């Protein structure tokens, strides 16, 4: 059975995931998202993968969340608070979620992974580096291309072309 740390982490993670979507203020939503990401990092630590956990915190919390937070702050204040949304749609969404969760959960609980544990030592993080550079090296190159493409594209998108004519009314 799960231990206390695990339970606490899962409560934090799932709770803040719900909060990220449901809190009225987008800023608090972003903070809650950080909670989720941090919780996932905690799971990674539980799973003996500190490299991924630290990568998760450094990249996800340290940069992606910052970017999200900053972008949220760029948005006008009244828009940070969302409009009241369609009730029916919300219930439909909750229904979909429940169906999905229950369905998937039962599928998983039904399957053979129910009682898998392991006593083998965890993978050393150096193996990951070795993986990167030997087996996955084309993927690493592609990764660089992705990063290059995304930074190029994002900068070209986010810059202003013509300051005078930029604010275009709807």
């Amino acid at each position, binding site marked *: 059975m799960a231990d206390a740390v695990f339970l606490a982490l899962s409560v934090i993670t799932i709770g803040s995931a719900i909060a990220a979507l449901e809190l009225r203020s987008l800023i608090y939503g972003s903070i809650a998202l950080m909670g989720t990401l941090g919780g996932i990092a905690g799971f990674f630590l539980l799973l003996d993968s500190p490299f991924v956990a630290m990568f998760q915190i450094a990249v996800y919390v340290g940069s992606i969340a910052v970017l999200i937070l900053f972008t949220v702050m760029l948005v006008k204040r009244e828009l940070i608070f969302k409009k009241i949304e369609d009730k029916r749609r919300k219930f439909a969404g909750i229904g979909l979620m429940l169906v999905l969760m229950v369905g998937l959960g039962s599928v998983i609980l039904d399957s053979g992974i129910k009682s898998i544990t392991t006593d083998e030592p965890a993978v050393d993080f150096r193996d990951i580096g070795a993986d990167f550079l030997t087996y996955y090296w084309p993927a690493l190159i*592609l990764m660089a291309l992705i990063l290059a*493409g995304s930074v190029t594209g994002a900068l070209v998108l986010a810059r202003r072309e013509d300051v005078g004519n930029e604010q275009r009314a709807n």
Partner: protein
Amino acid sequence: MLEISSTPLVIIAILGTIGVILPIISIARKETGSNSFYAVIAFAALIVSIGYVAYQFVTEHVLPSALFSEDVLVDDAFGGFFAIAMLIVAIFTTVGSFNYMRKQNHPAVYYSLILLSTIGMVLVAYSTDLVMLFVAWELMSIPTYVLAGFMKRNPSSNEAALKYFLFGALSSAIIVYGISISYGLTGSTNIGEVIQGYSTLDPSFLPLALLSVGLFIAGFGFKMGLVPFHMWLPDTYEGAPTPITTLLAAGTKKAGFAAAIRIIILGMVALNLDWTLALGIIAVMTMTIGNIAAIMQKNLARMLAYSSIGHAGYILIGLAVAPFSSMGIQGSMYHILNHAVMKGAAFIAVGGIVTTLAVTNLDKLKGLGRRMPITSLGLVISLLALAGVPPLNGFWSKLMLFGGALDASSSLSWAPWLAIAGVLNSALSLAYYGWIMRKMYFEGETEKRVSEPKSVIAVMIFSMIFMVALGVYPDPIIKFVEMASPTIGLGITP
């Protein structure tokens, strides 16, 4: 072990280098350079790449199809086939953009992103590892998010990009989830080992395996435009810049099929009973809804988008019957190639119309046949080909698809219905294609001819030759398809 001269690596080298260097060149030219300069470079790079692929085919350096390797990439005929299709689409896009991007900012980045996306599309077809496939998939997707929103002044472009981005991100997230489950079940990300893993799967894990298949179908389905996952597609195709729509409709969509064939059809062939029916139902739904919705459209781009959804349905027929009929998957691949050319040509034609006349509404296309004769001719031929009118190439691929469906009827009792649905839908599609032709040629008063963009004309002529010639003499391409298509034996059952 991957050789350094294997096709995917060479394509990465050529296109990647050019794609990365193009923005640098634009810095060196202080961003004042004209569009054509970068277009020519990109075009040359694409031609060189397609030449290299063809050279590899000719010199028979290519491995037989669907041979899985120990590496993340394999230089096989299946990948080569898709590489040729994707590169043709990319060439179409580049040439079509030549005119479209004339007045726009940042042409260098535009072409660079097209090249990067092309690498991604090609590599999706070549990859034999789930991680590699995922990375290539993202390399294909992320530049297209930017490209779809490249017209920053245009609200619809931005909206299209935003919707496309959100659903694209969702699709990739779902794919990662699927990959994670299949990785968990089989203990490896290499597709070859995944196949082995699945064939020796403990029955208690079967539900999870099905879950992963479902997630893969959903994830790829978002890109392919299958019906429950198609809601972003018309908006994006309408709003995005037309050359990019070409890339999306003819390129990334086909990459989705490539990935689906790699992973679902081949990788999870052991589970075929479970997904064939699902694919069949999705196929019928997709083609029906796509074609019916296409009839109701007033906008040419949007209509073609729905028609593209319909065609995804046709292609899916082949995938659905693939385990039971080798003709099915051949038909799919044949249709993929044909559809890439046909749809590419159609969208490039639309792009030409948009840039010269600034209309996309069907009602305003009256008399187009006299105003832009070559473009309209190309459009008409591609529409006819799309509808599957006999002397054109679309006919043969559809014939193969439906034939494959009938062929599989011995194993699958419901397979003939797929063929019937396909034929009915083709007839239905002929209706709205015909309506466009009527608008173009038989309505409206005579108007002066406007000068058509040369790049569009080039694409039109090439594609017309392609469609007509291969329609009249389809033998070589069928041989090529047969060589490239993976053989999945009828005998393989769980």
